């Protein structure tokens, strides 16, 4: 009996080895790319496709862009928006005929993507697969600094170019990487505009720093602490909380007990919404509350009154979008559609106004497209050189990468705005720009009205 089982096991092992050998590249089916945006939606905002030189029989080449997205898990909400933005860019550029290089090659783009489940270990496994089995030519980062940090290690080990979006933390660019290029304003600068605004509004404000204990939020808070001190603000409470915290009652009590008048902190969508609701329910009585990420999402308005007065740093807002005129004034090159064209196309395709996460996803494709056009090649080294030399402006903002060895790839030119949820005349919640002063659409709501 034992002998039979051993033989059976041996047979199974041989058969599985044989099947594995025959299978070759057969792998788990990748997650399908989102359906193409409606054709009419792409018309007004199609990114520039290079004009085809008069050469016969142009050769078509498909560039595979690999990335993971969080279809499930804690980062789902913003990650899906980022992917929608990227897909919009890809559909537009492909429908516009792709990018034509000087040798007549027409470059079109295809996405290879998997669900990372908001899990860093899965990110490393999947980026390895994207590089080694799917032969992705270029990479886009997943959403969130934590997942991007995991992906960046794999990308750099394999010498791949990775455009990072949805990832603001600074540290990943300070480890000697040469292939990472960041689109977001670095985390250490996330709150500077807010602090500048507070200095004008209430220099005696007492600050509570309450933030998610993750890479991104910690980097933002560590970045702002010296700036707060330099501007004479007193920090009366510093508290971090676990990412899966649901009960913010004890934290709200701590904030109230600390005598803080201004809250700076938060983390991502799930905890940010819970924290905002608790502050309101507990009548904590803050004059101003700034939370990271969550209030930048349109869904935040579903909170109702607890959303009123909550501010957020935003990488892009339509009401403060960057323009060709601004680029001309600064003397930098302009590239891509206008903010309005981008927003119209997105709304037509997805039925929702674009947030900065959408704009970041779109910009990732746009910047890669521009680098390929500048390099006149899809060779990774040539594209990398084009990215290093890039200094331009799109609707999303300025793009220029640090090329020093100390912080290669860190974003230098992009600037953020501060938005705040306020009620308009019709009593509807609207995200308004309150800082910097040059682009604000309304005055800050300060102090926030008591619940």
């Amino acid at each position, binding site marked *: 009996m034992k002998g039979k089982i051993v033989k059976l096991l041996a047979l199974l092992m041989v058969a599985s080895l044989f099947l594995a050998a025959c299978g070759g590249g057969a792998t788990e089916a990748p997650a399908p790319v989102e359906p193409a945006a409606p054709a009419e939606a792409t018309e007004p905002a199609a990114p520039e496709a290079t004009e085809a030189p008069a050469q016969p029989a142009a050769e078509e080449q498909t560039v595979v862009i690999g990335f993971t997205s969080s279809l499930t898990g804690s980062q789902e909400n913003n990650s899906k928006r980022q992917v929608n933005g990227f897909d919009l860019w890809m559909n537009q550029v492909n429908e516009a005929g792709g990018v034509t290089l000087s040798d007549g090659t027409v470059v079109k783009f295809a996405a290879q993507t998997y669900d990372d489940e908001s899990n860093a270990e899965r990110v490393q496994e999947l980026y390895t697969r994207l590089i080694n089995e799917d032969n992705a030519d270029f990479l886009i980062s997943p959403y969130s600094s934590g997942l991007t940090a995991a992906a960046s290690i794999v990308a750099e080990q394999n010498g791949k170019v990775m455009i990072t979006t949805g990832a603001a933390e600074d540290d990943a660019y300070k480890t000697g990487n040469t292939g990472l290029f960041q689109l977001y304003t670095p985390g250490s600068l996330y709150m500077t505009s807010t602090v500048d605004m507070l200095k004008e509004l209430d220099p005696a404000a007492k600050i509570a720093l309450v933030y998610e204990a993750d890479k991104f939020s910690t980097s933002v808070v560590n970045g702002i602490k010296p700036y707060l001190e330099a501007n004479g603000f007193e920090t009366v409470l510093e508290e971090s909380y676990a990412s899966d915290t649901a009960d913010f009652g004890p934290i709200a*009590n701590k904030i109230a007990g600390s005598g803080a008048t201004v809250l700076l902190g938060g983390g991502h969508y799930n905890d940010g919404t819970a924290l905002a609701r608790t502050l309101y329910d507990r009548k904590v009585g803050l004059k101003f509350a700034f939370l990271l990420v969550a209030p930048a999402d349109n869904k935040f308005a579903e909170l109702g009154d607890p959303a009123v007065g909550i501010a957020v740093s935003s990488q892009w807002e339509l009401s403060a979008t960057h323009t060709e005129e601004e680029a001309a004034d600064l003397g930098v090159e302009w590239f891509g559609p206008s903010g309005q064209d981008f927003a119209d196309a997105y709304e037509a395709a997805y039925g929702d106004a674009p947030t900065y996460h959408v704009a970041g996803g779109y910009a990732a494709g746009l910047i890669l497209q521009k680098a390929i056009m500048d390099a006149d090649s899809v060779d990774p080294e040539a594209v990398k050189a084009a990215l290093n030399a890039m200094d331009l402006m799109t609707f999303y903002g300025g793009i220029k990468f640090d090329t020093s060895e100390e912080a290669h790839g860190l974003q230098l030119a992009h600037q953020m705005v501060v938005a705040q949820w306020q009620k308009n005349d019709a009593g509807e919640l609207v995200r308004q720009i309150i800082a910097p002063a040059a682009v604000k659409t309304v005055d800050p709501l300060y102090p926030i009205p008591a619940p």
Partner: protein
Amino acid sequence: MQQFNLLLTSLPDGILLGFVYGVAAMGLTLIWGVMNVINLSHGPIIALGMFGTFILFINMGINPYIGLFLIAALGLLLGVLIYFVAVNRVINAPHLSSLLATFSVNMIIIGIGTAVFTTSPYNVDFNMGSFQLGSTIILGTRLIAALIAILFTGGLYLFLYRTRPGKFIRAVTNNRAAAELMGVPSTRILALSFGLGTMLAAVSGALIATFFPFSILSGSGYELKSFVIGVLGGLGNPIGALFGGLILGLLEGIVPAFLNTAWVPVIEFGLFVVILLIRPTGLFGAKR
């Protein structure tokens, strides 16, 4: 002094929350006590209870506390269904089989829940007002949730000790073979027990949804808390679970007064290990 004030402010909250944690844990510990099955689908059922409140209140406009009766009934039926589909056949098999069976149910519920609701957070915008008690604000939703939790605990106690099916459950818990010899229909009683366990999980989820945002993945955190509470109160001792819940709620109120909030899970699970090491039957004694 500031810490003392903070303690006084946070304690009532912790106590109220502890009652709700207790109901969640009662469901887990009841199933373990009656049939020696660790129900790994407990967390997703808590999440389903949360979505029950969301659907009834947001989509159908039914008051969450009235909707609770429907959620409890559906939870009971779901539990009976899970028992006959996944648990009954492995009830006498080694523990690993029932663990895997309930884990499979866990994955199925999360999979369907993810497809239907995604993993985005949901929020039930339901307010029962609040009032000042000393230096703390008591939220109406938490106070009512705690009262309902106490009512359910009392109801469960009366059911187990004053009704015929309840007595059958206790008989099966004590000695299934002997109960069968006395004519107790053990399979039906086991199914009823599993149903009651899932009903309590669904009810706790429905109550939690009235004050915390949630997603289909939110149940896992409460499932882990239920394990800690179960061990504190003694696995298999449903009434002990309520006290275990109170202890956990108190910890969540006390710890942030003295330490960073991020230390709460460290202390909770540290306590879990310590209790397992020094008093594996729990503070209030396990079954039998």
